[in-house]
């Protein structure tokens, strides 16, 4: 919905109201806007959402009192709180996993409020922080409701921590043209990522995965690689737009990505991909289980459990759990083979920091991650495994030379636009490691800035994938 014209009319109107109000009441505009947005976008599930807010608000207030009675009471209160808050999510994920195997079973769509997966983790983190004393419970129910329902990040994240976000939401911000401009720039970049890369790549991805009985061998590799790009661009775009919209109100949301496909190991990948989820899993699942402090075997078990939870969070199908376990297996295998690989690199004359070594590791990491994404994207686990098998057993390299790839829904001109856009993403990512591009752009003459904005908008308008036959509103991660 953050691609629709109506959403931006709403944002513009809300911004006007926000900055018109006195400073100390501005948060009320955000609250009204957030609740109104949710009511419009997911009216049927509003009751479950509000009930979850109310229950978690009360639980947070009761937790310190329970802790005061003793450790056991505190833990019991925490357990009950978490169970109540997580019940809709567990019912949704676990229930569908079971019910999907029962023919004729009814769905569980009534337990699927907008952003369920995201705000549930957000609330769990809040309750855990209150329990651990890292945060004081919010006494004002309306301010707490705003923290949970803040509309730019409710549907697709990032998953904020209470300490990082709550004060920003309620303190009220003066209009800052620099911050406002940066917000608009992020929104524009988000549109570019979505319409020029994600949705365009999606045309080919849908063809390969939708007709996997036809497309085997290297088609699967092409489809998988493009899906890796599509997923990244799509998710990055929704987070970028969320940050941009939040920035219009002076609120800073965390970035969720740090150039993940530049990682040189799967472990590093998870430090760069969906960082707010990764840090949540680390802080509230992996570390409480003991992390890596209790020996290698225990670490492997903790890692497996953590990634199984990650898989289940993404979806209730067996393929998501398999995907999560695959990443756990990657990291466990990576740890076990690290000494051997180090010896091989040294034997080949590639010490730590060597460019070739880094390139090899980056490509291998991307390949391993792509294998996982192939299963992730396939409709079922068996279909995903079948596609992987065909990738290694069907020999068809001529598809790169005989125009076969132009028969997957994108002509050669669209392919060129897609590849050029991906290259631009790569250039921007590389440039961002040396400093903020927006800061550089904002320091330039207005002619150059206007020129960049006009060129970007026109490129997206003319070359973007949207309109009839393409529903750009279906962000992939909004489905979790």
């Amino acid at each position, binding site marked *: 919905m953050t691609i629709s014209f109506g959403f931006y009319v709403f944002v513009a109107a809300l911004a006007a109201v926000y900055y018109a109000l006195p400073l100390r009441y501005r948060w009320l505009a955000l609250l009204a806007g957030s609740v109104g947005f949710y009511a419009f976008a997911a009216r049927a599930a509003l009751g479950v959402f509000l009930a979850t807010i109310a229950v978690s608000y009360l639980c947070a207030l009761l937790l310190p009192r329970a802790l005061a009675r003793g450790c056991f009471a505190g833990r019991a209160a925490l357990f009950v709180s978490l169970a109540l808050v997580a019940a809709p999510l567990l019912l949704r994920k676990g229930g569908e996993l079971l019910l999907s195997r029962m023919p004729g079973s009814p769905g569980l769509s009534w337990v699927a409020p907008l952003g369920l997966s995201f705000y549930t983790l957000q609330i769990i983190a809040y309750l855990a922080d209150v329990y651990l004393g890292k945060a004081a419970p919010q006494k004002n129910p309306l301010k707490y409701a705003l923290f949970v329902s803040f509309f730019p990040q409710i549907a697709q994240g990032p998953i904020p921590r209470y300490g990082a976000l709550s004060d920003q939401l309620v303190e009220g911000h003066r209009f800052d043209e620099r911050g406002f401009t940066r917000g608009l720039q992020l929104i524009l970049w988000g549109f570019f990522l979505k319409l020029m890369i994600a949705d365009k790549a999606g045309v080919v991805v849908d063809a390969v995965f939708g007709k996997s009985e036809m497309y085997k061998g290297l088609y699967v590799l092409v489809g998988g690689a493009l899906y890796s790009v599509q997923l990244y661009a799509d998710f990055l775009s929704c987070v970028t737009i969320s940050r941009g919209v939040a920035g219009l109100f002076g609120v800073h949301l965390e970035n969720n990505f740090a150039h993940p496909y530049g990682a040189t190991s799967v472990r590093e990948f998870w430090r760069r991909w969906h960082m707010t989820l990764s840090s949540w899993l680390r802080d509230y699942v992996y570390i409480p289980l003991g992390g890596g402090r209790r020996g290698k075997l225990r670490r492997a078990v903790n890692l497996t459990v953590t990634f199984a939870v990650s898989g289940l969070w993404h979806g209730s199908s067996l393929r998501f759990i398999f995907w999560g376990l695959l990443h756990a297996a990657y990291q466990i295998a990576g740890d076990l083979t690290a000494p051997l690989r180090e010896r091989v690199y040294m034997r080949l004359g590639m010490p730590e920091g060597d460019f070739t070594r880094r390139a090899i590791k980056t490509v291998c990491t991307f390949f391993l991650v792509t294998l996982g994404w192939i299963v992730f994207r396939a409709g079922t686990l068996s279909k995903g495994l079948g596609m992987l098998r065909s990738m290694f057993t069907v020999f068809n390299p001529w598809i790169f030379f005989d125009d076969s790839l132009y028969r997957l829904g994108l002509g050669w001109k669209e392919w060129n636009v897609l590849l050029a856009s991906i290259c631009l993403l790569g250039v921007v990512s590389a440039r961002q490691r040396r400093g903020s591009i927006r800061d550089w752009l904002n320091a330039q003459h207005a002619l150059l800035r206007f020129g960049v*904005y006009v060129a970007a908008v026109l490129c997206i308008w003319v070359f973007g*994938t949207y309109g*009839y036959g393409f529903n750009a509103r279906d962000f992939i991660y909004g489905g979790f």
Partner: protein
Amino acid sequence: MKRAVRYFASGALLLAILCALILEADRVLVVKSFYTDEWPTQASFASFYRMRRDTVDAIILGSSHVMTSCSPQQIYDEYGIRSFTLSGEELTPLAAYFWLQEALKTQSPQVVLFDVYKCFDELGVPLGMPEGTARKQIQALRLSPVKWAFAKAMEAVEPTQKASENMLASFRFHSRWAELREEDFTSREMSAHGEMKGFSVKDGSCGENYVYAPFERGSSDEREEMMPVMERYLEKMAELCAQNGVRLVLIKTPTTTATIARYNAAEDFARSHGLDYRDMNEKALADALAIDYHDDFIDYGHANYRGARKISALIGRMLAEDYGVAPVADEQWENSREFCRAAIEDAELTHVTDIHEYLNRLDLSRHVVFVAVRRDAADAMDDAVREGLRALGLNAPIWRGSSYYGVASAEGAREEGSDQLLVCRGTLRGGRTTYEVTSGGADCGDTCLISIGGEQRSKNSPGLNIVVYNPTMKRVVDSVYYSAGLSLNR
């Protein structure tokens, strides 16, 4: 405060620039059809908009059947009646209603003839026409409340046709950038040609599969129901005409799919609404038309220029004698006569089989003539042929086994004869269209290629190969070859 005002002012300026550029991008992206296209749907309305106010006395409204059948120029030349063929591919009553509403903003016709072909369901789709055709029809209209109402009406019938997406071209044509052509960037220039007034000249003859079987009125009581939504809009059209003092007449041009059942349904509708209905598939009118279907039509429902001649004569007579539309001299029709005549003559040229007559019919005021030899054309060069080529500015130095090329146009001629393979390159239309001519005599290549706009158009046959190109229509009119003693071959 001052800073904030300056900030928003510069933002407003940027937004204004963006809106202007986006509208211009939309104008380029929207699918267009011009007088040069096979079905110039949008060209019809574009040229209609340019007609001077209240100068069109009769509008002939309908689908492509009407587009190929009704020549406003002929109607004017024979009866002095100022008419316009406002037609579009698969134009249904739903679309025609809004087109008429738009047309009545600037014109006050006495009579509107509407072809009822699309009142009946042939495609099995709610809109009665394919989605791409619907887009073209709505894009023919300028941005206005009528266009919005049209878009909403389409959305009501077919929910996938979102009204908002039909107002901005990019939403419907966002992938068109990969198919842009010259006309998309020169649309203003292309729209200057409205001489045909909606009529599209066709050539060709249909095969034996098409059987034209006029029926006798009253021979059956069968009735085929009109599509309910189309009938509703036909009623609205009748109301609209009544409100504006316009006489609405329902017609049907000859088609092989016409049936007594459809005739009865249309006749009933007309009677119940106080309208006349003239069906050219009904025996009395069909006999008056004297159509030879296989000679006068290119397929089941589209007349060629010969059939259009007959149908236009009938329409003109109907307007003059039955509905009293008076003749009025108007330079908008006077000035287009030459253009329309040339369009017919180009169609007639493709039937000429005598080389001498052929060369005499070529007109450098509108043709560019390419002549090239393959293998040997010495025997083909009799005095009359040389005289014909000389009239085109070509001296034709051709001898036994020689290569030869000649390019003749209003700007002059270039030619060369040789014992070697010859290649000549150049451009037409101010550099916009390329051409390349290759001629190889018997001992130097034995080939003949005449490429225009990158497309090889010659017959590449032994003898004299001729390609006639019309730069105004941007198309090859004809491609023939001639060897001595034979008639022209295609």
